[in-house]
């Protein structure tokens, strides 16, 4: 590739695949071997006054933010143009809606981080990996706020769709367009780089609870009956944290 250094190729074309590989293999491993550790790790029992606000605000605003990322990153600019949305309209919509989302996420995570820091009962339950992912998320959210609100709503604005979005989609086409991302501002590059770190760390943190969203509850019968079933004994050497093969009903 012309005009692209080896480091840039490593950073923008190798690291993403490594992160994705860790993400996929990590989840398979965790799901197979650590069902017992797969939980929300709720601290509502210990503290509820702050969680009552922080929990819902953070999660619902996060859903908005995820929706915004899907629109901005996965949907090509040509598609929105095709249905008659011009670039300025798109930008103001994205900046305004994005600001609502990111302010919500910021307020929510501030409340949650605050109770984790200042409520002794909650802090006592916090493991090093919880701190690690919490700090990562905090930085990522502050960067998101800077881009959405400071740059795009209040500032001169930056159209990331021809650069960041093109590069991101090219990764999944198997032909990484490193040129596209290299030309993006540093703010965006840091945000994206941190995102790969979060994705790689995801399977080893409490974030796995996101995949357990119990939507199925809406349709299942109220009372669950189970019969005693045969099942295999523990895999050798895995009794300590109850690592064992799943998928065997009992």
């Amino acid at each position, binding site marked *: 590739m012309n005009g692209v250094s080896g480091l840039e190729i490593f950073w923008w074309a190798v690291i993403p695949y490594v992160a994705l590989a860790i993400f996929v293999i990590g989840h398979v491993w965790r799901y197979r071997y650590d069902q017992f550790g797969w*939980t*929300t790790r709720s*601290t509502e*029992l210990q503290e*509820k006054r702050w969680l009552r606000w922080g929990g819902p605000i953070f999660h619902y605003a996060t859903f908005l933010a995820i929706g915004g990322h899907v629109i901005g990153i996965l949907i090509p600019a040509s598609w929105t143009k095709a249905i008659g949305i011009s670039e300025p309209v798109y930008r103001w919509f994205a900046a305004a809606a994005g600001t609502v989302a990111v302010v919500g996420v910021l307020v929510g995570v501030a409340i949650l981080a605050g109770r984790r820091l200042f409520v002794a009962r909650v802090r006592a339950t916090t493991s090093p990996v919880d701190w690690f992912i919490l700090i990562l998320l905090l930085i990522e959210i502050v960067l998101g706020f800077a881009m959405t609100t400071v740059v795009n709503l209040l500032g001169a604005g930056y159209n990331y769709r021809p650069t960041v979005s093109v590069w991101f989609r090219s990764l999944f086409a198997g032909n990484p367009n490193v040129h596209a991302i290299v030309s993006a501002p540093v703010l965006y590059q840091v945000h994206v780089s941190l995102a790969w770190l979060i994705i790689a760390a995801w399977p080893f943190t409490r974030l796995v609870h996101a995949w357990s969203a119990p939507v199925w*509850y*809406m349709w299942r019968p109220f009372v*669950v009956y189970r019969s005693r079933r045969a099942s295999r004994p523990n895999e050798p050497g895995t009794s300590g944290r109850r690592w064992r093969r799943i998928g065997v009903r*009992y």
Partner: protein
Amino acid sequence: MRIMAQVCMVMNLDKCIGCHTCSVTCKQTWTNRPGTEYVYFNNVETKPGLGYPARYEDQEQWHGGWTLDRKGRLTLKAGSRLKKLISIFCNPDLPTIEDYHEPYSYDYARLITAPAGTKAPSVSTRSALTGREMNPTWGANWEDDLAGAPARALRDPNIVALPEGAAEKVKLDFESVFMFYLPRICEHCLNPSCVASCPSGAMYKREEDGIVLVDQDRCRGWRFCVSGCPYKKVYFNHRTGKAEKCTFCFPRIEAGLPTVCSETCVGRLRYLGLMLYDADKVLAAAASTDPTRLYEAQLGVFLDPEDPTVAAEAERQGIPHDWLAAARRSPTYALIVRHRVALPLHPEYRTMPMVWYVPPLSPVADVTAAAGYDDADADNVFAAIDALRIPVEYLANLFAAGDTGPVRSSLRRLAMVRAVMRAHQLGRDPAVRAADVGMTDEAAEDLFRLLAIARYEDRYVIPPAHAEDAGRLLAQHDLSGCSLESEGGPGMGGDGPAHEAVPGFHLLRREALAREDAADASVAGRDTRGRLHLRVAEHPAPGPLGLAGTGGIA
């Protein structure tokens, strides 16, 4: 007709002395791990009192159990499934640790590390959550024997709900106060609202014996089971982030042994036996419009194991023959259905609970004496029931959705048995007859034996799980037992509680004891398998009631 079998417990409250042995042995067996300090699968509450967690019985506050919607359909009191999913990020009905109590221990190291001095060192209370010093202000046993009752007990939801007039009977001054103990475990309901509330589908009712369990591997910590249970008998382990609950000691039940709380009950007030019920009728029964009909409706769900059509149908549906035989001998069926003295706890929650209670009659003798009654007079025997210090209306709020009828009927039968047996012992003519309370003399005699002299094998009629399932069950134990092996659990690195619990009691000793018993067969003449052998003599004399002594305490 879909016949299912369920292990069921009845507790005779007249016999509970509030010693908390059941709570202690249960805790030693199941919840002596970090994260479960505040968890009591079994606890004993003094009534009147707020209970544990505080005021758990007030479903207008906690929204546990079921209710009927506008169209009369059964629905969870906490709201629709969608409402649950929407409020999943902070469950509005979840009790906090203050409603239970912040777990604590003591800074015992101080006893050793304190500098030399003239004063004896003392230890301070340390929170098990934070390690900081704390000052306990509430707990599972805070109101034991009415401690603090003058300030607090009138907030007991069962007192708050008393009708005008009955409320005035509740007195908390020292001379006229009343109290009794209420041991509580999970109700293992026929229509469990905790199971229905679990978004992950991790909670389930076992088809074979009706025990309600949490699959520790599928629980994701959404916490709705905790708030969905009106009895607040599902707890959140704050270390593992998973729900835990009373297991009905299923590894012991499978081996044909009583639960630990029953086994160790000093007052021998617990009865364990099978109930057969028609699973197709449960929903309709739980949806009875009038809450006071729920008790009768639940009785209507139970099936008579003596009924040949029931027996034939049960066998056809795969209920093992020995289970049917056990159902016929079931002491719980006798107390609940045949004699109608046991009542469900809070049937108005519509969960169809399966741990029932014989209401307390205890102070009746004192009351009758104090009021100048004489139990030679039939009118006085029964009139005393309404003069009890424990207002019948209060018991009705606990056991019959406020309807005094079933409570009064149960107490009348208990009073009759007492009066008849007392007259019999004193060689007098009894003033009341079994027929006065709608019983036959044989039934009264059976009730007396069951309540007064039932031995171990009469109180606990538990058919072992089937031998052909042994291999599978072992595998299941291995899995469920492992939940105790996490982070400092009692089974850490060991075989898990299913294996550990046994030598401490007598499953393994059973073989040896059985051999001994075979030698003693001339004395015993009964099946002594599974009995707690506290032998005082090699060949004990026959018991005081003239029954053959079977070798010690039954």
